[in-house]
């Protein structure tokens, strides 16, 4: 079980959060075409290593928290607000 440092509430148990996937994808412009939207919705890198992702603090402040997590070790390198740009450690 992770303990996630919510930038609004402080460290909280994973049970308060809901996972919402890759936080690096950006919604394309509305005229970008089907392929761009297809990638936005479906295409994911599934990395073995560091991953920047959304965790929704659904049982707390209801903010989307950006989390840099290692998919093998579950180590968390950093958390931030939705607009923050978080450094991703080297492997």
């Amino acid at each position, binding site marked *: *079980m*992770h*303990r996630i440092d919510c930038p609004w509430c402080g460290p909280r148990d994973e049970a308060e959060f*809901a996972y919402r996937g890759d936080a690096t994808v950006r919604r394309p412009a509305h005229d970008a075409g089907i392929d761009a939207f297809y990638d936005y*919705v*479906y295409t994911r890198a599934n990395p073995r290593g560091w991953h920047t992702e959304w965790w*929704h603090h659904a049982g707390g402040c209801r903010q*989307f928290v950006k989390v840099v997590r290692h998919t093998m070790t579950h180590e968390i390198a950093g958390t931030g607000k939705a*607009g923050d740009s978080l450094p991703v450690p080297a492997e």
Partner: protein
Amino acid sequence: MIELPRRPRLRTRKGGHVDRDRSLTFRFDGRAYQGHPGDTLASALLAAGVRIVGRSFKYHRPRGIYTAGPEEPNALAGIGTGARATPNSKVTTVELHDGLVARSQNRWPSLALDLMCVNSALSRFLPAGFYYKTFMWPAAFWEKVYEPAIRRAAGLGRASALPDPDHYEACHAHCDVLVVGSGVAGLAAARAAGEAGARVILAEQDFLAGGGLLCEPGQEAWRQEALAALAALPNVTTTLRTTVFGYYEQNMLGALERVADHLPVPPAHQPRQRYWTIRAGEVVLATGADERLIAFPGNDRPGVMLAGAARTYARRFGVLAGSRAVLFANNDEAYGTLAALAEAGAERVTVVDPRPLGPAAAAARRQGFEVLAGHEVTGGHGGRGIYSVEARAIGSAGAFQIDADLLCVSGGYGPAIQLASQSRTAMRWDDRIAAFVPGDAPGQRSAGGARGCFGIAAAARDGLAAGQAAASAAGFAAKAAFALPEGDDPDATVAPFWEVRARGKSFVDLQHDVTTADIRLAHREGYRHIEHAKRYTTHAMATDQGKTGGLVGAAVLAEARGETVAVVGMPTYRPYVSPVTWGAVAGHHRGRAFAPIRRTMLHDWHARRGAEFMEAGLWLRPAFYARPGEAPWDAILREGRAVRQAVGICDVSTLGKIDVQGSDAATFLDRLYTNTFSTLPVGKARYGLMLREDGMVMDDGTTSRLAPDHFFVTTTTANAGRVMEHMEFHAQTVWPELDVQFASVTDQWASMSVAGPEARRTLAKVIAGLDISDAGLPFMGVADATLAGCPVRVFRISFSGELAFEVATPAGYALAVWEAILAAGAEFGIEPYGVEALGLLRIEKGHVAGAELNGQTTMRDVGLGKMAKKGDFVGKVLAGRPGLTDPARPRLVGVRAVDRERQIRPGAHLVEPGSDRSLGWITSVTRSVEPGGWIGLAMLSGDADRHGQRLVAAFPLMNEAVEVEISSPHFVDPENARVRS
């Protein structure tokens, strides 16, 4: 006079940790026995001379007690009776109490005579993977014939089908240092960390602290002193009967505390068990080491036991497991069993050691034990208990027999690495002890036997160091050390010896009946990886997780691969280290407390009115209000008729309500909904449809504009949470530049729908401050007013297809407003209506709901394609994918039973008469008021072209085929005149 052979005395006169002054009576398979406080069920059974305690999983071979702890593979029993019957309990960990009732398992009709042991005779036809290979087809045969037969023959105990009378607690704990295991290393670590000032939890699975110290009379004083020192430290919590079963991320561990399993019934107000979630700053794993078996033919016979277990029974419980013993061991540590057995009264112990004569063997000889160095055991004889052990000199063919009733086996010790493995700590192969040893990880260190520091003195020193290091890492400076046990530890070096190659079944997993031959078969068939071989043979997948034979199986696989065990490795261990009852996992989340219940403000009124409630998500909603003696359908049709012909009132407070504000609120809603809200005038409502980004319909509802920068959004009951999250995601991460704020106000507003031709006349009697004529409040109008002195907001919207008003009021006024409307409507015959009538009305009107908006339908599919606007909105682009715009996709139609009273069912497939090709399926059905008879909505290929056709609604599960007529989904008022009246 004939002298009968004297039955040997199995319980020693003194020593150990049992209270011989008191006796406890227990029953095993119906027979009464006696034991003492301090006994486990296993030690008491051994003291009573019981040798067979169970039958094996697959071959039904008789099995005895193999170990003295939670690593036990064989001796599983059902404990307790009635609702408290617990299957598959390891008798080696069951603490004896007066009146305990235990039953053996997996035998029929009885333990001594088990007819299922025919499996054993057939065993050459039951190799690994047998079920995969044999029962592949025909599929129907699997369900009806093979599986029930296998389930009866295999498997272990049976759970009680009665409701569990006990309760279970979920608890959380936080500490600086968690020490798992209270052997000498754990005691030293906990004391060192505790004296440094850290908050320490010391968890021990046994009911006595001490681990291996309990078998060391010479160290009893040290054990007592250590426990007293820990008890004197207020910052140290020692918890017994507590198994740490799981090691999760960031030093979160799970533990099960058996609060009352050692009592007949939990004390008043006490749970049976506690499920602990422990967050630890630092973890010291002092879990000790597990002794390994050696694979040889018949190594599963009753009377075969691990050497350390025989020593534990002798020293801790004062029980002699056998008086003519053979010790088969490849390590010096196991020689400690000789003295223990001799002191407990064994007539003779013979040592069979595959190594050349070494110092330990020479010392044993000097003490008078017979030692056969360079020998190996090739078999054990005696199905109901060993009477003879077969041995031979290594390399020779001539085996000989040794008369024996106990065969102690030791293949060396391996650190108990289950928890360290779960946390993915790197493992290192240690040639000296021929075992995997865990390294350290951030916040985690293993100590003592758990990292290969074998022997009391070495483990104590290692535990002390680990405790000091953990406290220091947690920010506490170490204090002066305390005295540790001293003495010479046996040489821990092991000559790896995994298997005796001789004819017969050599088991590596006793609980799952996996033999060395099974492992080799798996290898021959391509399952070379340890994780594959494990799954193919089910080796080490039983409830003991292969603690005694896991590495032996890996070694057999390594030999078959021509590689070392270090290369082959061990499978990753998973939680749970020991089985955990479902009751403890569920805790209080069962029955009515399984999930929270949401009730509307009008719940008590509904209950008084005799409502039958149904669950809608977490909500309880009235399904219908049956009058005394009235059948459900009669009540539903009566309620629906009231709405069509007079007036009805329905509690719709469960609909999701979201208050949206901000200068960009309109833009925000435009981007989320398929239709446009920026053009909506203040004081008006509009029906809206929301898509997921993949183009499927997500939800629908009405949105009202209360001010230029203020909207009131409603969602369906089921999707309220998802829509909120969808809005939050887009507002926070996709369009953070928009000035928009929103909050759920579902609980702040109670709302009720007043619908029917008499709705206006009803409301007009009680409403103040608002003209609700069609001119004053036209269709889709929204306005504030007062009703019975309470503030209300009136929405002229309709779900039923009738003239309707939705009246919303701050939640606290709900009952006053509801009762005032009911009183006003009495003269028109007003009826409260429930969710069933609500469904009836919307199906008659052709409105879609959850059954149609199931996440697989597009706007076009449900007949709302015209609602897509030109500009951007979530889901627009992907909704245009070719597969989703295919004109052949099933789309919404109405269906009506040709024989009006023939029931149709949701899920039925629509086929042409005589055909079995599905053209679509029925989504919602109801008995109807206005068209009459059974009607429904369906998704059908060729939709509008088929209006007027007759198809068959096939429901093969119930062998039904009902002729239906296809029509427009709008059975009632297709011109939509009534809602505008």
